[in-house]
């Protein structure tokens, strides 16, 4: 892939460079948020190439019914700059929040993140601990709809769950539809909600002992502008002074993606790919993965009664893979239960109806029997009469 401008990974300090390459030089980014907020467009903007056609080009809405499930798309790319290669995995989740009932629709995304931790953990437990396949999510970009109101329950529920598993970075999508004042108010509200709901978002570490004052200042700036307001575009336009810039061209003006006056795109890119790439990777390993691992081992230890020592990882103490079949998705479970209930109700209703019916038939038979007896009695009487008449005649 060709990059006209350096993304910045080659500017990583030397020691970080080494660390990153020791870690395999892999960076995994997951985007999440309601449909149509420009996730795909953003990915393409970030990596300055069309990794994935956004749906407006493929015209998906022409085929099939309106989609019902969250999909998970994995895209791989290699960023190359000055002989430095960074393998980037981007996980896109189209279809999120598209349904009438979005309860538990976060489950697939949460499961995906957990599954990656799990897969890594099991590879690590192998005798030869070379991990071949690592898709642990280093950062989750959560796209917020630019309503100017606040966060939706779906946003809050999903963000809460993500924040305990990965580095969560909330972003305001399509920020070019909010005026400066609206954006300011909106950011404030979001920050208030995030704080009040105790959602832990990723913040660049402010190391007070750090001697690099400029880095400190930069980190502080990043924190201040969270949640980042972003604009995405796959097109370039002349900005009036002869240079081509990535922008969105409206009749009322040109929104420049890389203009700090217009949006926070540059800040976010810097955080993701330059200044805090290492923080993201390390905290994933040290915080989120370790938490997952501890919880898994604990639950396993608690689960089986006759256990060896705590830290031991012998072959028989293997952590079983969580069986995540369809039936384990609570959403399906709920549907299944509802269906079952409906079915039993129906059955009950039918049974009752049949019982009534039977009762009526029995009643009728009894009555008919009664009638029959009556008639028989009458016949007998008549016969008797006939007999007596005959006798009298004689």
């Amino acid at each position, binding site marked *: 892939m060709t990059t006209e401008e350096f993304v910045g990974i080659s500017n990583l300090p030397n020691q970080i460079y080494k660390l990153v390459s020791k870690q395999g030089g892999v960076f995994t980014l997951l985007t999440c948020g309601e*449909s*149509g*907020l*420009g996730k795909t467009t953003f990915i393409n903007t970030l990596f300055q190439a069309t990794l994935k056609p956004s*749906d*407006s080009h493929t*015209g*998906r*809405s*022409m085929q099939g019914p*309106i989609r*019902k499930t969250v999909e998970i798309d994995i895209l791989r790319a290699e960023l190359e700059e000055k002989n430095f290669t960074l393998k980037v995995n981007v996980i896109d989740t189209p279809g999120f929040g*598209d*349904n*009438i*009932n*979005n*309860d538990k629709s976060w489950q697939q995304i949460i499961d995906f993140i957990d599954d990656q931790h799990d897969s890594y953990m099991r590879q690590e437990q192998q005798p030869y601990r070379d991990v071949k396949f690592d898709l642990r999510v280093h950062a989750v970009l959560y796209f917020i*709809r630019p*309503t*100017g*109101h*606040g*966060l*939706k*329950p*779906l946003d*809050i*529920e999903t963000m809460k769950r993500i924040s305990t598993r990965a580095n969560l970075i909330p972003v305001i999508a*399509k920020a*070019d*539809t909010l*005026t*400066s004042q609206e954006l300011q108010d909106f950011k404030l*509200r979001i920050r*208030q*909600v995030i*704080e*009040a*709901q105790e959602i832990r978002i990723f913040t660049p570490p402010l190391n007070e002992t750090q001697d690099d004052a400029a880095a400190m200042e930069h980190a502080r700036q990043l924190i201040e502008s969270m949640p980042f307001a972003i604009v995405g575009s796959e097109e370039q336009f002349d900005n009036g002074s002869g240079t081509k810039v990535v922008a*969105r*061209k*409206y*009749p*009322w*003006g*040109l*929104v*420049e993606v890389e203009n700090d*006056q*217009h949006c926070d795109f540059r800040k976010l890119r810097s955080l993701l790919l330059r200044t805090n790439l290492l923080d993201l990777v390390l905290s994933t390993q040290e915080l989120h993965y370790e938490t997952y691992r501890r919880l898994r081992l604990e639950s396993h230890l608690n689960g089986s009664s006759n256990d060896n020592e705590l830290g031991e990882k012998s072959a028989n103490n293997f952590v079983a893979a969580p069986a995540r079949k369809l039936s384990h998705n609570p959403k399906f479970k709920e549907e299944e239960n509802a269906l079952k209930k409906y079915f039993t*109700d129906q059955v009950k*209703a039918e049974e*009752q*109806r049949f019982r*009534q*019916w039977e009762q*009526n038939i029995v009643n*009728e038979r009894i009555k008919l029997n009664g009638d029959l007896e009556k008639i028989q009695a009458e016949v007998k009487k008549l016969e008797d009469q006939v007999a007596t008449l005959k006798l009298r005649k004689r």
Partner: protein
Amino acid sequence: MSASPVSQVFSPSNNGVSVFRRKKEKRGITFSMMLVGASGTGKTTFANNLLESTIFPHRYQQDVPASTNNENVKIIQPTKVVTFNSMNGIPSYMSAFDPASPFLEPGITVTSTALEITTKSSEDIDSATPEKINFFLTDTLGLGENLNNGICFDEIASYLEQQFDSVLAEETRIKRNPRFQDTRVHVALYFIEPTGHGLRELDVEIMKRLSRYTNVLPIVARADSFTPDELTRFKKRIMEDIDRFNVPIYKFEVDENEDDLETIEENKALARLQPFAIICADQRDNATGKYYREYPWGKIDIDNENISDLKLLKRVLFGSHLQEFKDTTQNLLYENYRAEKLASVPAWDIENNEVIDTSINDENNEGNSSGLMKGLTRNSTAPSLSNFASLINTGKFKSQQSLAIPPQSETPSTPRLTGVDEGDESRASISASSQKSTPANIQTSPERTKLRNISENIPYMLQHERIVARKQKLEELEAQSAKELQKRIQELERKAIELKMKEKLLRQNSHSQSQESIQTNTTKQNSTSGGAYIKKEETYNDLASIISKKE
């Protein structure tokens, strides 16, 4: 973007105001509009822009006073909640921004505002008196904000149906109510989120339901999210989806035989433009009174017809198509509904004729003469605070009406009572209520119908059970919300007391301080004697500690 033919059609001389001249009435024209769409799509902003005033507050801004600041618009009846359904039993309309609780799903709230618009027809010199429109604006809040939005469209659709029912009830009445207010919604604007993709499940479902009872105009909201190319593509996609899912929206159709050439041209142009894409704004130029959106990269004049269809939409709504919307509502939608309703009567009715007659009599006896009025106003009985108050005090509502279930039995003379429609729970509850009739029926009918009756009734019995369960749940919710309210009141009261205490404390402090400097000896006595007014123990302790610190 607005195509030029339309601008030509709406040349100033042909401004839609002529409609008012044609249909001049003493009491003015009644026009009712509904705004439906996901939260944050700009419904409130649109309503304000439409009326060129600041009547409607944004979400979480309920404390901002409404001001019309437009002499042509008068508020006849301020915004009130007409129906709602929510988890906590409180209409979200009233809630303020609380960062700690937005995880609470807002449910759905429908509000209504009655306004009077005076339109001075400028080119029309003959009519000195200005024309009036009695304008009802219905807004919906909370759509798309819930994890499960299934409750939303049922609530909105049943609200619309109730308006039809009340007209039907009025029509079948022998003695008409002279003050009857027709609240049928003539047009609903559905605000589509500017996703760039197409219609979502929710959009399709809601528009389908709405269009049974009203003219639906799909609107691309916040059209400034799109560049001209994207907008063209998005509009095309929306229309494709509308066709694909058979959403019966209002189409600007022409009747080649009846309409005049001008109308045909106009409608064709409008049809091509659908769905209208609008941009709305809060900011207003004080000098010119024009609304605009200002971004760091440019300024949007929302009246610019090349960018936004807002102005055009205004003309369509208040001018060229106002009467048309009313006519289709009456002649097509309502007539269909009426026919359907009446047609569903006989099958059930004939058999149970006498029984139903008696049940009607029963209900008539129960409901006094004002039952007629009650039936008409039942939809507008919003949960008032006095209701809450009585609920808190007695555990029961003043009126026997529950909050969420519209009482069904109050329109006894409606043929609707006897209509049986399996799909509709609320109607099923009526048939369930007439179940007491069945035993009598069994005795008189021959054996075969007996069996049939039984098999027919059981499903309704089951439905009835379900309804009872639902009602119970709702009542529980009501009680719960009342409790919550009370808790809040208590908390507020507590806070008030606390504040008062603090005030007193401060006063005393300053008092004692000043005294301290003069006569140190008496300080203790003074403040303790002041403390006698304070009843709460904690505060007493606080006071004591402060005093001891000082000494």
